[in-house]
């Protein structure tokens, strides 16, 4: 639904991908894969047991990000917790991209209180 229009944002995203993420691909291919790519004949089941089986009150509030700094911090914390320090290092750059990409839809007309009426 959206595309990157700003040249600056586009360049930053490109840099993030090629300089920060792509070097991690080799590592992922060499065995530290983030997810399995196919069947495992030795596995009895493919179900993954959830760590948290219920949503706590904190879970409802956790994803809120007031600005890109908060996003960067939460992202880094998420990846530290999940054992992905290599990604946590990329979080500040992703936060910077988020700041540049922030592009809310233009709300170009008033929403009439009768918008759903037929006239």
């Amino acid at each position, binding site marked *: *639904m*959206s*595309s*990157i229009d700003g040249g600056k944002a*586009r360049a930053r*995203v*490109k840099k993030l*991908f*090629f300089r920060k*993420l*792509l070097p991690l*691909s080799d590592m*992922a*291919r060499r065995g530290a*894969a*983030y*997810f*399995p*790519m*196919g*069947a*495992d004949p030795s596995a*009895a*089941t*493919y*179900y*993954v*047991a*959830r760590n948290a*089986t*219920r*949503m706590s009150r904190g*879970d*409802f*509030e*956790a*994803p*809120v990000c007031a600005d890109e700094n908060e*996003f960067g911090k939460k*992202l880094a914390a*998420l*990846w530290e917790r*999940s054992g992905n320090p290599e*990604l946590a290092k*990329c979080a500040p750059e*992703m936060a910077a*991209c*988020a700041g540049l*990409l*922030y*592009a*809310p*839809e233009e*709300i170009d007309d008033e*929403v009439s209180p009768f*918008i*759903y*009426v*037929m*006239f």
Partner: protein
Amino acid sequence: MSTTILGISSFYHDSAAALVRDGEIVAAAQEERFSRKKHDPRFPRHAINYCLEEAFIEADELDAIVFYDNPLLTWDRVVKNCVMAGEPAFEQFEKAAASILGIKLWVQDYARRTLGCLGRSGRVLFTDHHFAHAASAFYPSPFREAAILTLDGVGEWDTTAIGRGDDDGIELAQVIEYPHSLGLLYSAFTYFCGFKVNSGEYKLMGLAPYGRPVYERIIRDNLIDLKDDGSFRLNMEYFGYLDSFRMTNERFDALFGGPPRQPESRITRREMDLAMSVQAVLEDAVLRLARHARRESGAPNLVMAGGVALNCVANGKLLREGIFDHIWIQPASGDAGGALGAALMAAHGYFGSPRRMSPGGRDTLKGSYLGPAYSSAEVRAFLERHGYPYERIEDPDGRARTVAQALADGKVTGFLSGRMEFGPRALGARSIIGDPRSETMQSTMNLKIKYRESFRPFAPSCLAENAAEYFDLDVESPYMLLVAPVREERCIPFDREAFYNNEDMLQIINQARSDLPAITHVDFSARVQTVHPDDHPDYYRLIRAFREITGFGVIINTSFNVRGEPIVCSPADAYRCFMRTEMDLLVLEDCLLWKSNQPAFAEAGDWRKDYELD
């Protein structure tokens, strides 16, 4: 103290809003119905506005606004996917960055800008995607306790979740994670057969009975490893969605004898057989998952949601298998239903609202009639303002008799009555209806009214108490989510083998398959809606009147739209669709409009270009 919660789903596919007060569902609607853009993914400001109006509240009276997905975890998946896929995934990464980092992450800003505030809590809350699906299925269901099974393409990391709901709330214990997904597997075949992903899955399901499962073994041997307990993995060597905008790749092409079918080109025997083959695999997987859910949960009943739960053929098999005593499926099972689920999840899981159960043992979804309604006065004001001739019949029984007689005379009728449905199915509030006894009605309605593919079957609506006269179905199916066999004594056998040996679909479409040919699919099945008088009295009355006139308590029910158009919402939408097609009669609440009496309808330009084919 009262608690009012607004749920929102948006920025992916089919945005929607829903409003829940003290655990009661007050309103829910998809943005596409107002914006007139099919599957509109934009922030659902029109739908939100409607929900607030329906509840008679201002935005600052909301206790919470809840989004149906966790953008942090979604971004985590996108990043890890692109790292795994490497350089070819750059375009995908660029697009996802714009969508998630540029838009989805800032849902709180969107809410503030649209509503002018964030309600009493001053912030947006979030649910996990599959918890929203689970809540949309469990809380409105008629069950005190139930196993929960959610199945979709992907939400954050999860593609499948199994859990349980009871007085303590919702627990999801086991999941299958991306990229291993039954929804994406089915979408891959949807794409390969030349239909649109995220909307053409329904067509693939409808195409399946024309085929034979000749590719089932190839799928099982190469594409999916399905364990006895229902867990599964896909072989990603054959799929394109990790590193491209295609669902399948060249290896997939080689497996099935060539490239994907081009959209709108002729459907061949290969596509029919592929549809049947993947449908067979999906059904087997769903049955195994359900058995596992039964064992793990110990619950006698099952609730389901997620896009795959809209596969009503699989649902019908699940019902007939008897794994659970009862099953209940959320009709808005796609992403739109996530808005309702998010609101319900927060109502019960965050604010602690007590769960509302129906004392009569039915669900609390109100027939899924959760959208806007238009009074007779509003309809008449519209018609008179434009000078459209109409006949008003205030007596509900008299009106039902008049419309039923028109149906019996072969007239195709647009029917707008009461609150609009929430979810992808029309259930008699925004429906095109017809006589199912006609042998030519299926092709007539497909080609002259809906302007869609002629192979697509139509669904029947019948009185709840008479369903067993026509179908092998002994439970209610109010949301058209169960496919059941037409009763054997009503069916007319034909030579299916002869059909399998050629590719002429029309040969079979126009052949009578039962005494209700227009709603009997080629495998003698039907996607049944049972109508209960409490859910929609006017619609019930109409079918009853048709039964009194014809002896058949069944009518054709298809959504009130043309191909690519969102289902109509307002009388103006309905009138426009009526005049663009070869419908004969339009019912707008208690006003009847005959096509033959209407003035010429002039439009600037070709309206067909307004709608992208789905």
